[in-house]
């Protein structure tokens, strides 16, 4: 079955720096790869979606890359702020509406 690896250790960075989160997967590439943000005790919130034929997608301070050869996606937050502190989930989808979630990486941005 598909396995998604995200760094289970928390990522601590200073405000203003760029945060980079990694998502690696096994087996075949998904049709779409998505990133969600989740705050404690809340449901995930959609951030960005990138298709298998796209290399990069940007939205404001966010950037996602997708390398189907490496089977990897990188998620970047530039000019990070304390309000960006949350858990970020990498999600794969294969045109079946079922979402396959990674375990998430907790990001802590300190002043």
């Amino acid at each position, binding site marked *: 079955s598909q396995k998604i690896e995200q760094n289970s250790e928390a990522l601590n960075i200073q405000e203003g720096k760029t945060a980079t989160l990694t998502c690696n997967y096994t087996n075949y590439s998904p049709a779409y790869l998505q990133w969600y943000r989740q705050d404690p*005790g809340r*449901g995930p919130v959609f951030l960005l*979606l990138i298709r298998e034929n796209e290399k990069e997608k940007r939205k404001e301070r966010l950037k996602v890359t997708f390398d189907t050869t490496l089977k990897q996606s990188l998620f970047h937050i530039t000019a990070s702020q304390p309000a960006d502190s949350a858990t970020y989930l990498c999600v794969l989808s294969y045109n079946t*509406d*079922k*979402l396959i979630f990674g375990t*998430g990486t907790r990001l802590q941005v300190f002043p």
Partner: protein
Amino acid sequence: DAGVTQSPTHLIKTRGQQVTLRCSPKSGHDTVSWYQQALGQGPQFIFQYYEEEERQRGNFPDRFSGHQFPNYSSELNVNALLLGDSALYLCASSTGPSGPPDTEAFFGQGTRLTVV
């Protein structure tokens, strides 16, 4: 637009009991998916409902069942509760097969179920 709403927000049940969780999808959405999220883990897909039928199912036992109503709202039922069923249960709505495949899912705030 109220978005996806779930009820109740918290619930405590005893082993062996049965529980029903409820979800109202975002306006304009006809597909509801349920996920279980254990502490420190990512959400795991339970099943999806579309046109009042279970369309897909994850690797969950038959103790987990669901229903979708004509107004697209949905219920998740869990029978014979086990301690390991303690988790955050999330409902997600989308346009499903009736809409484009590459669209986001909208999640509710979840129901925190504790089995004691």
